[in-house]
């Protein structure tokens, strides 16, 4: 019942193509995160699902109805806005009650539903306050309560945590996951924060410039990014990427680039050559680089960033390109200025066509 299907949805604002031919199936009871940089069209996509924007072309299906011509109120959705969009002149109780009032729910039933929502979100003591008298976190909860009170089939959330401070954000993140699990509803959650996406989503849909880049479970998106954009966008610190060509090094196939070279797995090298790509980009995540006496990459550690539980070593290759190595804090801290040799496990290398930016998988 809470299935949402976008079929070749495009939304243009005059010349700006905010959403470009987006096709996406969101399963019933799925927690799907729409992730992407600011301005990539996430909010617009969400608003198209909500019915607040009409798609320029394509269809939107919710449940088993095409809803292109259905008013937002009849789509069986609820939305949490980034600004929370609480009604400032109404008390918390009236705010939560509003979606029930507009649907002419009996006062007694309204009372029960409001109380349930208030209990679920810890708002019982605040029901008579006005939004102006609440903290940011409390307002956010009211917005959530107003969304869940009607038990819609689909929740749409547009960066609901972005106005909270870091601590509260982590806490609320976990609570949202729990809430979704308890309510068993579909959630479409928009964020630009990859940590939120990784931790909350059953699946992540990554967008850039209005175009869907990849959809998949967080771990698989992390492990097998479909293109360079996803590779660079997901992961913190980001994946190191170097552009080069496949060469033969003493019988071993390797990608050679300005600052050094990285040996490839034979199957990977074969696939890269078969792809016909003139130029390649090889990517390696910071945690997959390690010091090694016979490592193929020569580098100098320029900055050591200590995060407590781990370190980020900012190194420069011989051509000056920056490369980041992630290191546990259980090994001795290396000195800045040290020359090191780095090696990467070929199994953990990512190879992309430098022109199409698409991933090339080993065969």
């Amino acid at each position, binding site marked *: 019942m809470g299935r949402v299907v976008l079929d070749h949805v495009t939304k243009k604002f005059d010349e700006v193509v905010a959403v470009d031919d987006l096709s996406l199936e969101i399963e019933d009871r799925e927690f799907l995160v729409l992730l992407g940089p600011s301005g990539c069209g996430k909010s617009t996509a969400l608003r198209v699902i*909500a*019915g*607040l924007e009409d798609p320029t072309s394509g269809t939107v299906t919710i449940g088993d109805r095409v809803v292109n011509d259905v*008013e*937002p*109120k009849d789509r069986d*959705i*609820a*939305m949490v*806005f980034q*600004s929370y*969009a*609480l*009604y*400032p*002149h109404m008390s918390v109780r009236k705010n939560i009650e*509003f*979606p029930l009032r*507009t*649907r002419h729910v009996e006062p007694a039933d309204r009372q029960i539903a409001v109380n349930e929502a208030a209990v679920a979100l810890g708002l019982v003591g605040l029901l008579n306050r006005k*939004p*102006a008298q609440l903290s940011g976190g409390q307002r956010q909860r009211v917005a959530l309560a*107003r969304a869940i009170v009607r038990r819609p089939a689909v929740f749409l959330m547009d960066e609901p945590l972005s106005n909270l401070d870091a601590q509260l954000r982590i806490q609320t993140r976990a609570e949202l996951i729990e809430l979704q699990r308890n309510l068993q509803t579909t959630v479409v959650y928009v964020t630009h924060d990859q940590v939120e996406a990784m931790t909350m989503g059953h699946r992540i849909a990554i967008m850039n410039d209005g175009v869907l880049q990849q959809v998949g479970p967080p771990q698989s998106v992390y492990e097998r990014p479909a293109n360079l954009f996803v590779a660079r966008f997901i992961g913190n610190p980001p994946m190191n990427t170097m552009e080069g060509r496949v060469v033969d090094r003493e019988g071993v196939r390797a990608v050679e680039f300005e600052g050094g070279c990285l040996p490839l797995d034979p199957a990977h090298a074969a696939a890269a050559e078969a792809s016909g790509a003139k130029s390649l980009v090889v990517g390696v995540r910071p945690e997959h680089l390690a010091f090694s006496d016979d490592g193929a990459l020569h580098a100098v550690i320029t900055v050591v960033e*200590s995060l*407590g539980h781990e370190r980020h070593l900012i190194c420069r290759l011989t051509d000056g390109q920056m490369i980041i190595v992630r290191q546990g804090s259980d090994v001795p801290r290396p000195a800045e200025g040290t020359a090191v040799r780095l090696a990467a496990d070929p199994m953990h290398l990512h190879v992309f066509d430098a022109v199409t930016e698409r991933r090339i998988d080993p065969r």
Partner: protein
Amino acid sequence: MSTIDGGATLGETRSSAVVGVEEPKRPPRSRRRMREIGLAYLLLLPSLVIFGVFIFYPFLRNFYLGFYRTPPFPGLPMRYVGFDQYRDVLTSTDFLDSVKTTVLFMIMTVPAGIALGLGLAVLAHQRLKGIGVYRTIFSSTVATSVAVASVIFGTLFNPVVGLLPWLGVNPRPPILDNPQWALPAVALVTIWQTLGLTFILMSSGLQAIPDEIHEAARVDGAGAGTRFWKITIPLLSPTIFFAVVIGGIFAFQTFGQIDLLTQGGPLKKTNVLTYFVYRTLRTENNDGKAAVLAVALFTITMTLTLVQMRFLERRVHYGR
């Protein structure tokens, strides 16, 4: 770790600077305060002088003038009567009728004007192509003066060359000479003339309501009507209230259109308070009575202003 250290050091440096530099050098509090208060009055002095000469003195003088009865013939001395004249004038039928007329005028102009301005503002608030043209048209009467409006409508109402006879409607007596229709006609002119301002006021009020609140209401199941009555009107209420009070004050200061269209007639049916004051002073040459009327007018306008100020103060607390 280094970042956290840096932050703490910075904070400490700043607070020690505050403690170390300012405290020993601070002069005794009372002396500094005295100096500041002195300076404040000095800076206020020019405006105090201007207000004193042009507002406070004339006001007190006018109030005082109300204690003197103007003689029936010029040349005779003014006679001191204390509050007698205040009592006589303020209980006279002429005065009470004039207040009634003014209140009636206010009732005719304010709600209708606001409803119309709000209606147009809601229409112009739609996100449609070419809506800017309508916005310009709706706000255009701001650029006209009362005199221009009066001349335009005076011509339209004219029984010979006006619009109505051209349309084949020619009431007898002509509208502006008709005791029943003169006041509504002047009210119509006033509504038209202030419509631009009301429209702009309501439009800015509407624009101050975040779009997301309307969108939330749409998702929450509110149709256009519910959104208007449950969201727009309550959130616009400060603006509406402001417009009501300002409209009330305007109504009590109406003069130009009365003078140009009806001169208070027919049968004093458009003899609003301001015009009454003017007639008493200019036609009857009764300075004392005019002074009393002016004080009454002032009191009413002042009350409206106070109500408005009280409310504006409250609105600050209401803000999100």
